[in-house]
């Protein structure tokens, strides 16, 4: 029965590659036909390099094949959103925000201080990119919309209307608020 080899640990890699380098180099030095001692030195190192690489090649190839098998299960949509999703941000919420905020409007982006730092940063980065051509306002006070994760707009001291509360996948996460700023 075929079973996949597990990936090698650091000591195992060193042992295999190091032993192969020594054996490969020694064989090249002993049995290679070299024009001079200098050529033998160079040939020995080349043989050591190739031997150390090729002895681990099956494991390296298997690691790449395993990665391919795991990656090909993802749809194109999942693959493009893998980064922020892996940090726990539900990216489908930005699709719903894009449906609410017209492309020509700008917005202010806020994340609660209570959110885990990388998750909040993931929300910021993904929103800034995926909401284009909507532009994040350089001057937050002039923004047409406010988009905040975990902070109701009233707590930010901004008068708004058209308030939308967007729930995220997984009940444990606070909602994202989308609202048009009063003018």
């Amino acid at each position: 029965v075929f079973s996949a080899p597990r990936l090698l640990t650091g000591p195992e890699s060193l042992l295999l590659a190091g032993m192969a380098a020594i054996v490969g180099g020694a064989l090249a030095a002993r049995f290679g036909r070299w024009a001079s001692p200098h050529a033998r030195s160079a040939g020995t190192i080349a043989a050591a390099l190739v031997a150390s690489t090729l002895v681990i090649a099956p494991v390296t190839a298997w690691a790449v094949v395993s990665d391919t098998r795991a990656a090909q299960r993802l749809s194109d949509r999942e693959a493009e959103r893998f980064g922020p999703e892996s940090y726990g941000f539900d990216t489908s919420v930005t699709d719903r925000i894009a449906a609410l905020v017209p492309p020509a409007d700008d917005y202010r982006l806020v994340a609660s201080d209570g959110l885990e730092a990388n998750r909040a940063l993931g929300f910021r980065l993904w929103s800034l990119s995926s909401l284009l051509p909507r532009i994040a306002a350089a001057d937050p006070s002039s923004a047409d919309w406010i988009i905040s994760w975990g902070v109701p707009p009233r707590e930010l001291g901004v008068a708004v209307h058209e308030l939308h509360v967007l729930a995220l996948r997984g009940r444990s996460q606070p909602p994202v608020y989308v609202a048009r700023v009063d003018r």
Partner: protein
Amino acid sequence: MIADVLALLLVNGLLLAAGAGLTRAIGVWTRPSELQTVVATALLVGICAFGVVAQLLYVVGFSMSWGQSLVVCAMMAASAALARAPARPLSKRLPLTRVEWVAAVALAFVLIVLAVDSLYQPLASWDAWSQWTPKAHALVQLDGLDQAVFGNAAYADLHPDYPLLIPALEALAFRFGVGARVVHFEFWLLLAAFVVSLVELLRPRAGALLAWSAAIAIAWTPKIGAEALSANADIPLAIFLALAGVAAWIWLSEGNPAALGLFAVFGSAATATKLEGVVELAIVLAVALAIALRQSRRDALLLGMAGALTLVGLVPWRLWAIVVHAPATYSAGAASDNLVSIEPSRVPIAALLLVRQLFDPQLWLVLVPVAICAFVVASAVSQRHRAPAIAGAAALFVAIGFATAFLLPASSYEWRTAYWLLFLPVVVAGSATVVWFAREGGAAAFAGASVGGMLAALVGIYLFTPYDFAWHLGTSSSRVVVPPALFAAVFAPIVLAGATAGNAGRESP
């Protein structure tokens, strides 16, 4: 997916045509049959030149639509007509021996496996999904370099002041309908072109055995494949720096003007890829200039002029960033603040973590130690009376490198007294090794001093980082060691061949 791949191949066909024209213009080849011997190098030249020119054209207001991109590639291809001076081709058409065919199969196998993997890769790496690809999307969606994003403090997290080569390349692919997932295939193409280019450039100089050995070892190194498929900028930077180094060395050792042209192209690409590329290229150039000055003022002057050309894409971009007040990662104010609150303890921990990454056998196998071995052999050949000392220092450095890889936790950012036992010997042995390599005076001096300088510069960057030290070190130290490691691996066959030829009458193993 098939349509995406075909579109990306079409894009690279255009870049190859551009590169073929440019390499003809700078004298890399003269007859069409000679182009076959440098076709991978030509593709890389096309990619680099397009990225640098695109950065320049974005700054002056072009949108780099598919039509404009087509015109740029066509003009580069037409530059072949500018070739005037009789040129010395950089490569030779040598028939492959039976052993070389086996080597080619070993190389092709890993490249094919990686190619398939690249087509399914998710956009998982932090820098790729949070910075490089979003900026490419912004260039396409806003039809050019729009201040609303690139000069807007609200987009500071996207690092708008970072150079544009990678976003420009991805934007070109997006313009031709390639999806964000298949864009990983472009990074695979860069890696494949690089290893073939190594064979093209090193085989006539270092001999078939050394050239193929280096190419196979690099392509099969787990870290190289993983980084190439991450769609980060570190592998492109490492490739451009290594090729700039090779081109500089060909100029120094052969005086071939075509190599100067290649240095300018690959060097400008390095400065247009990542901010540390500017520092690292400056180190490579400074070392090359020091060697050139020993040879002749003319060699140094021409190399200096090629070095000045590498700033062609960078300077307008930096000026634009300053004029539009693009949020700066490394601002002058932040630098002065960091100088005041400098923490010297960052130096040893950053140095040890970089060494730890370099010697991690899971990532690099024994590529780095074997490359050091090559340098030791070359130095020992030319400095026989110092051979035991050189070998001893290098052996100590490698031993401590492995000890660091196994003893130091990957996320150890706090200094501990016991670390002195690793840091002091690694600094002494490493410095002694680099100094002895430098005394050897040939390729070992060039590569040894360049790699030592790059590592010192990286420690300096961590010392003055405006980011949280632990976060910066933890998220980047495994990636930033790629350029110096690749540089050392690429120069190992050159160093060995130089030592062999210099002491045994121009023979190659």
